């Protein structure tokens, strides 16, 4: 692995020619009559290798570029309340003809849309200043890792997983990926900004088999913005093996109501629903369990949930220096170009703020909380940055020790979450808790309840908050859910 990790000092404009294409596209849309226009350009480099049973199985190395354009036409230039028509287009063909084609089609498509009083770019004064370098999103050690080292990391992780136990004789493989993305956004309201980000990750998925031939797989991974912060392949391989092995011999339990303890990986997706319920799009349509609940109690007093689009972590390196690294969900500006920020969504159970982009904020007569997510085409949606549940005092072991009889969920399956009604029903597997101890693995069961109740019935929160991905939630214990089995 590369020994030098450096934050790029000022993140200058790396692709002036692509910035020019974006600027030209905006200008040409304006010259065709658009009141406003906005262009994004994304250039990315991708490396991905799959290793299985020690051999390279797939290796991908490539780069791509694409441009997305949004145009706005005021329905009545003399009356801003008449709203505007809008359309968006995107292309991977950045030739002059390719760009002409999407600029023309954006203008034509906008004509067929209806005027929307709430559509449009943010107000000029909302954009503010950006300092991408302070977020530390890009580390040049990621593209610098030599390909043989990347392959070796995946290979070592798999080798250790397979050497852990004689019951592991097969593997779904291990992989390593390294990606860098450069993103630029320019609009007709004087906004222009660019930033780069880097990401590397590896994972391994061993398969354990018991004496009667039944197989179980599980995986573990490590990901980081700089190669320096990746865990050792050996450590990840060992954890993956333990996770697969502990599922062997899983059985079903009878249908019952019991305490359910969610491990951090599944607690994260459960509590991610809390942010989804606070999504401004669902709120203005009144199609969320949190509609009309701003300022009211929506969860237990122990629940504080934060979304932070500008989160930076300080890591202590081996030589005692401090390494500042931006979170996986961090970015200098959101999909509308607004500076990202920290937003307390739920504070001690009270719904304090919503996940809003510019459009949904206007619909609700509020201010954007800068949660716009923007791909290439389409209007911006809403997406979180780094989000987390405020941790509690208990260790995960203490939480489990407190359960007389219940379920410790390690994995959920399926999409049985309805944010309109709050109904929650998913497949689950994990370990059964008997007298405060992990007794045996369980599978082919479901857990069900209603999110409105679940958020109020979290009776214990762990101290094990760890940002392994954009969101982090510690171990939690929920009362009153139904486990369905045999």
């Amino acid at each position, binding site marked *: 692995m590369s020994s030098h990790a450096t934050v790029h000092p000022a993140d200058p404009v790396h692709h002036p020619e692509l910035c020019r294409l974006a600027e030209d596209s905006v200008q040409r849309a304006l010259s065709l009559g658009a009141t406003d226009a906005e262009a994004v350009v994304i250039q990315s480099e991708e490396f991905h290798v799959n290793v299985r049973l020690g051999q*390279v199985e*797939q*290796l*991908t*190395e*490539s780069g*791509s*570029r*694409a441009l997305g354009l949004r145009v706005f036409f005021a329905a009545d230039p003399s009356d801003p309340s008449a709203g505007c028509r809008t*359309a*968006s*287009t*995107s*292309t*991977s*063909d950045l030739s002059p003809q*390719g760009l002409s084609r999407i600029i023309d*089609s954006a203008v034509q*498509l906008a004509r*067929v*849309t*209806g005027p*929307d009083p709430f559509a449009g770019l943010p107000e000029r004064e909302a954009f503010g200043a950006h300092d991408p370098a302070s977020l530390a999103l890009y580390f040049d050690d990621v593209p610098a890792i030599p390909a043989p080292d990347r392959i070796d990391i995946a290979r070592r992780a798999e080798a250790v997983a397979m050497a852990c136990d004689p019951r592991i004789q*097969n593997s*779904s493989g291990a992989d390593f990926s390294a990606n860098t993305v450069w993103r630029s956004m320019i609009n007709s309201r004087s906004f222009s900004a660019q930033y780069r980000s880097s990401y590397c990750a590896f994972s391994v998925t061993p398969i354990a088999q018991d004496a009667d031939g*039944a*197989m*179980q*797989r599980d995986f573990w991974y490590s990901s980081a913005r700089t190669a320096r912060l990746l865990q050792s392949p050996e450590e990840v391989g060992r954890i993956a093996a333990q996770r697969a092995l502990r*599922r062997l011999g*899983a059985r079903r339990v009878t*249908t019952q*109501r019991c305490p359910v303890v969610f491990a951090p990986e599944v607690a994260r997706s459960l509590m991610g629903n809390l942010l989804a319920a606070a999504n401004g799009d669902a709120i203005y349509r*009144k*199609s969320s369990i949190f509609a009309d609940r701003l300022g009211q109690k929506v969860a237990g007093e122990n629940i504080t949930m934060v979304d932070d689009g500008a989160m930076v972590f300080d890591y202590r390196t081996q030589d005692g220096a401090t390494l500042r690294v931006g979170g996986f969900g961090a970015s200098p500006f959101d999909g509308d170009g607004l500076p990202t920020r920290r937003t307390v969504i739920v504070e001690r159970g009270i719904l304090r703020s919503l996940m809003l982009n510019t459009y949904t904020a206007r619909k609700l007569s509020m201010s954007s909380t800068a949660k716009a997510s923007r791909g290439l*085409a*389409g*209007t911006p949606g809403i997406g979180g940055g780094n989000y987390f549940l405020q941790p509690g005092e208990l260790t995960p072991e203490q939480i489990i020790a407190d359960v007389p009889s219940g379920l410790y969920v390690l994995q959920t*399956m*399926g*999409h*049985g979450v*309805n944010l*309109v*009604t709050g*109904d929650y*029903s*998913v*497949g689950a*597997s994990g370990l059964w808790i008997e007298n405060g101890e992990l007794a045996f693995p369980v*599978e*082919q069961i*479901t857990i*069900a*309840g*209603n999110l409105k109740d679940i958020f109020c019935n979290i009776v214990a929160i762990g101290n094990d908050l760890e940002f392994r991905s954009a969101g982090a939630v510690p171990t939690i214990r929920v009362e009153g859910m*139904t486990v*369905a*089995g*045999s």
Partner: protein
Amino acid sequence: MVTDSPAEAADHKRYFLTHLGLTERLMERCLGEALSAGGEFADLYFEAVLSTSLAMDEGILKTASQGISVGCGIRVLSGERTGFAYTDDLSSERLLQAARVAALIANGPQTQRVRSLRELPSPSLYPIAGFTADAEIAAKLQLIERANQAARSFDPRITQVRVGFNDELRRILIAASDGTYASDTQPLSRLNVAVIAKDPASSSNTTSGSSGGGGRVTLEFFTGLHSPEHFAREAARTAILQLDAIPAPAGEMPVVLGPGWPGVLLHEAVGHGLEADFNRKKTSAFAGLIGQRVASPKVTVVDNGRLAGRRGSLNVDDEGNPTQETVLIEDGILRGYLSDKLSARLMNIPNTGSGRRESYQAIPMPRMTNTYMLSGQDDPADILRSVKRGLYAVNFGGGQVDITNGKFVFSASEAYLIEDGVVTAPVKGATLIGNGPEALKYVSMVGNDLALDEGIGTCGKAGQSVPVGVGMPTIRLDRMTVGGTSH
């Protein structure tokens, strides 16, 4: 229904040769470069996709977007290894550069030469539909407006309506070192309606409903049984129905699945587990079960990529092979896997034309097309009457499977209690869970009413999404776990 027409095939190719300036000479040079480090096989996959999306929301056509994606993926096989590179720049320099990157998966002198490209006739299972001319956009706007009106006028309790029309035209050309030379033009469209209903007596009682359909069809498809009014009424009906839904039951019980989209059961319970890549690696719960009983004798399941106009259908797969009807389970016995070039060669099994990929940026792998169970002898009414206490599920959201331990889930979005053989109260959404190699052994009745879904399915595997179809007659499963809250 299926007509072979070599003349059509020539048309598919012309776009790449005329509009994008590619030549067969350049393709052969790229393939030669790709094999230069000793690879055994190489292929080029050129793709040009034009997609359009229109959406009406709150009665306003708020969204109109269009995307263009053009590129080439170059793959080199060497033993079990795959080298892959792609480019969105189709200049000869960039194509040759991508070929050299992919070539490096092998490590030695060139051993294979490029066979001359030869084109085979391919069927015409779907029209070459255009969706972007002004007239077609106007027609789509009319469909959207009609759906919007129909949903709003269905019931005063419908408070929100969103209607979307998404379509794409995907052109592909495949040239491979084994001489494969194939091309296709694949239309795909889908109309969607999503509504919110509110009980005026209780503001917290809010529900949703959605419906949609389409396929590899022209706009004429959206008439009669597939009219915008049909999809709008379906979405509104399910939302209104849910206002009175009671908690779903919890635990093991007999389950009757209605015809059509509930066939997603097959997709999750057996389909993925029978994809050859998982079986080659022996990571599937179905590995080694060929010739063995995995379902009741009443169950026959096929995967068929050759149904005219269907969402999962393809004239050729993404490796240039013709698609086919493949029997997966015959009278309860496991018969075969779904394979692509790599798995067919390594496992020494027939190639079922199941190699699919999301785009030029992705490596092909064995995938399903349209997967369904054949009709049986039972009257659907008798099937319902046979159940003393159970669940009748007629519509579903998505599903998921762990192919290694075989456990799968799928989530009912419209379901009812069955009490003493009679369908009674609607229940709230609930997830059903089962074990793939076991679940279909409990199929005790199979209806005579096979139906395919309306054209809404998208399947995800290893991060790649592809359109698929499913289908099933009404069936009775004697045992299945229902994940409700009522216990």
